[in-house]
């Protein structure tokens, strides 16, 4: 394509401009203090004047060109036979575009073959025009930049202003991402709530999107069993595993272990946090779940299922241990040493000091850490996809198969169904709920941590 070739040409021009302006600025140099800016800055100033306008022109043209090409093709005599329907017409045009780009491609419509030739001609014409336009803009920018190379010209100030603009744009990406998440979730969830009432979604107890049709659609999108499964696995079972193990290992490492042991054990413990969740999921499905099923069977439970909430929650809890441990570590370290020293001086043993002084003092920090751990556990996907199962049920039996919000999001979006059905859109509604809940947990936890730190400073 000419249009991508011109991009290389513009970059080449920028390079030439950089050298030219720097060389000219060097010629102007007559001694200390004779110029405002170093020659290199003049080079950058010139290069920016070539690159920025030309790249803007290039992206603008790439955006409007498809419309111009389609317009030209529609003016072609062969286009009279084009079907009137918008959808159908767009499909034929897309076919022709495909054919124009790749002559070996197979068209579904004979009309597309006829249109491929004018399509190719129009594309050639318009990309040539675009290339010319971009080159003119680059040369004009370069010409203007070159006239500015003068001894007194503050090139550095201008270049630095451009750098600051770049920095600002980079940091605004974070807001843009947040905005993108919120907007896309709200938009798609809004489409979903046009079909299904939000109240039925948030309070209904029957989840069966597969047979949701027509009038009873509300009754089949009750998400309460999913919320229950998520809480049961992520906030109850996983925390029963992670809180005692994480907290006790943090206490041991900070209060009892020698520094050599701490130096070795802590990084090894953190490996647990670095193992990909898909590996945990596989481990849960391959080893832990069958183990639990067999144990349950030998204890006399009738027909225990292969997929159980217990297996998923257990493995998830282990994954969270290092997280809880390091949060507890921070919280314990924030308690002033004088407090535990005082307790020890009064004759309390170490464990008494920990239980009666350290833990109560560090409690807000630990609770905040647990909240962050819960927010991480309920957003966890692969472990539950591989080990928790698909049946949406309200049950307190840890051996039952249970489903979660994240599992259903994956389930709804990985089939081959059309995109705008309520079934696929429900994934975005679930995503919205998950996003809001984790956001609230995080905000509260971060605020608690902050206030807790301030209390001891």
């Amino acid at each position, binding site marked *: 394509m000419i249009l991508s070739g011109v991009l290389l040409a513009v970059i080449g021009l920028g390079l030439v401009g950089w050298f030219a302006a720097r060389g000219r600025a060097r010629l102007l140099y007559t001694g200390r203090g004779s110029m405002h800016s170093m020659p290199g800055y003049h080079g950058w100033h010139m290069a920016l004047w070539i690159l920025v306008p030309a790249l803007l022109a290039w992206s603008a043209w790439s955006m409007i060109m498809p419309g111009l090409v389609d317009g030209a093709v529609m003016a072609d005599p062969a286009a009279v036979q084009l079907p009137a329907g918008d959808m159908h017409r767009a499909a034929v045009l897309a076919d022709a575009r495909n054919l124009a780009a790749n002559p070996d491609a197979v068209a579904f419509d004979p009309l597309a073959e006829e249109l491929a030739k004018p399509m190719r001609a129009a594309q050639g014409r318009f990309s040539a025009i675009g290339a010319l336009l971009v080159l003119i803009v680059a040369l004009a920018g370069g010409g203007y930049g070159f006239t500015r190379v003068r001894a007194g010209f503050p090139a*550095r100030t201008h270049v*630095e202003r451009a*750098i*600051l603009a*770049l*920095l*600002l744009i*980079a*940091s605004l*990406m*974070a*807001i843009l991402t*947040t905005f*993108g*998440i919120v907007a896309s*979730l709200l938009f*798609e969830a809004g489409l979903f709530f046009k079909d299904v009432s939000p109240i039925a979604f948030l309070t209904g107890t029957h989840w069966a999107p597969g047979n949701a049709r027509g009038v009873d659609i509300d009754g089949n999108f009750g998400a309460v069993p999913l919320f229950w499964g998520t809480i049961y696995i992520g906030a109850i079972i996983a925390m029963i595993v992670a809180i005692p*193990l*994480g907290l*006790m*290992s943090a206490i*041991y*490492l900070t209060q009892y272990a020698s520094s050599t042991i701490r130096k070795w054990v802590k990084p090894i*413990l953190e490996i*647990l946090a*670095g*193992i*990909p*969740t*898909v*590996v945990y*999921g*596989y*481990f849960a499905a*391959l*080893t832990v779940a069958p183990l639990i099923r067999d144990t349950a069977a030998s204890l006399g439970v009738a027909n225990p299922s292969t997929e159980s909430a217990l297996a998923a929650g257990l493995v998830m809890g*282990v994954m969270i*241990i290092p997280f809880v441990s390091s949060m507890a570590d921070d919280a314990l370290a924030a308690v002033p040493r004088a407090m535990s020293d005082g307790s020890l001086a009064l004759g309390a*043993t*170490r*464990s008494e000091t920990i239980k009666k002084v350290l833990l109560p003092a560090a409690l807000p920090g630990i609770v905040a850490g647990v909240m962050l751990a819960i927010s*991480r556990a*309920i*957003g*966890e*996907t692969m472990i539950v*996809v*591989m080990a928790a199962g698909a049946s949406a049920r309200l049950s307190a039996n840890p051996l039952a198969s249970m489903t979660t919000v994240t599992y259903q*999001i*994956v389930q709804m*979006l*990985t089939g081959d169904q059309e995109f705008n059905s309520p079934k696929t859109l429900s994934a*975005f509604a679930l995503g919205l709920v*998950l*996003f809001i809940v*984790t*956001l609230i947990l*995080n*905000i509260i936890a*971060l605020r608690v941590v902050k206030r807790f730190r301030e209390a001891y400073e």
Partner: protein
Amino acid sequence: MSNNSTFSSPAFAKRLARRHAAERRFKLIGLGAIVLSLAFLALLLFIMMHNGLGGLNWNFLSGSDSTDPHTAGIWSAAKGSILTMLVTLLLSFPMGVLAAIYLEEFAPRSRWIELVEVSINNLAAVPSIIFGLLGLAVFINTLNLPRSSPLVGGLTLALMTMPVIVISGRNAIKAVPPSIRDAALAVGASKVQAVFHHVLPLALPGILTGTIIGMARALGETAPLLMIGMRAFIVTPPGGVTDPSSVLPMQIFLWSDEIDKAFVQNTSAAIIVLLVFLLVMNGLAIYLRNKFEVRW
């Protein structure tokens, strides 16, 4: 005298012994918690090694996915991972570093900047599957980028990795003492020069450490890529960033779903390969931190 008798009474000795026993018990419980956690890690690694080591050979490393477990290999998925990581790195590293510099060195105190900081801290804690939903809605349904391609996967993971890089970058920049900036400014450098010529090079090892850790996390990520359709059955390695492709963790997920028992070996072997990759990356991060860490 009376004091002495209190401390030597049999009741006191008994109470003291009980308290010391409680102390020992407590310490033992702590040790037990660590041993239990490490035992779980050891068991996981042992089972993967036990199942997978037999399947690691050249054909496995250089082959592509196949319906036959004995000829299936991971090269196509590994290549997909490499391309995806390349896209992620090229986008998230410059963006993350530039944003970190701005927030730490230039940003004025204002409502907007506060909003940026809050959103970065929150993005770092948003569940990864939400980023997948974003990628699906924006990159695929709105911008019509090619489904299941490393390009879309890399873009999605870049958005996820950027906050990690920004946070570690800010900490690294914050650790550079102000005297460095003052010295540069004192000899006539502009603020931008002081930052880019002096602060940034000193902060770079810390930024790189954070970047590697963020990339390691992205490499093991599966859920967001599931959302953007990277679960296709890929027989030929992708030729470019717009070809349909798979990635290593996705290959593990796909194989784990196979009914054929022989795929257990493949899955475990792929897990070993992935873990080796991650171990090397984390090792590199630790090495960088130890080698270049300066205590001011």
